[in-house]
């Protein structure tokens, strides 16, 4: 069990880098546009974030703390709810501005990654600013 967390972290990083590499190879020959660059950036940010979170959990585990407890679970569920609502609005905006998106694959891929990014951002914000009496 001790090495599960770093293994997950390593795999998440490798998967991210592989996808990024795949995109780089697939798109070789022409420079990625702003949208594609943004997608690659979100991919990398998500991968690095997953890596950092898992490493932090692993370090806590080594120090005798539980990787998750009742507060972190509550934050996770609440952040998930807010992320879902925010993602709905993002998808609505994506469909409204689909004329500016070159193809369906980019639209779907970008939308899914943007949802993941929103989820990360909201969870990160709530971890720092959680207040049960206000949220």
């Amino acid at each position, binding site marked *: 069990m001790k090495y599960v967390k770093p293994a997950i972290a390593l795999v998440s990083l490798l998967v991210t880098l592989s996808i990024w590499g795949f995109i780089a190879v697939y798109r070789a020959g022409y420079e990625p546009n702003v949208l594609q660059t943004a997608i690659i950036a979100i991919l990398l940010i998500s991968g690095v974030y997953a890596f950092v979170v898992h490493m932090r959990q692993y370090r*806590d585990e080594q120090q005798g*703390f*539980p990787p998750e407890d*009742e507060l972190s679970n509550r934050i996770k569920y609440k952040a998930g709810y807010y992320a879902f609502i925010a993602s709905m609005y993002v998808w609505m905006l994506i469909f409204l501005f689909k004329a500016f998106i070159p193809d369906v694959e980019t639209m779907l891929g970008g939308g899914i990654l943007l949802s993941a990014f929103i989820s990360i951002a909201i969870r990160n914000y709530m*971890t720092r600013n*959680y207040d*049960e009496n206000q949220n």
Partner: protein
Amino acid sequence: MKTRIKELRTARGMTQVDLAKEVGVRRETIVFLEKGKYNPSLQLAHKIASTFDMAIEDVFLL
């Protein structure tokens, strides 16, 4: 919810890390509890009160 956790903890010479390990939560949870930003479960409140050998209502104030 207001708590007397910080006061009781420092009186016993405990750090946040010590208390967190004692009751089996992350250090951040103790930080949020002390700031009154998190209302703990009954189980956690009981564990914390037991650590201080006090009743729950003497540690957590409404």
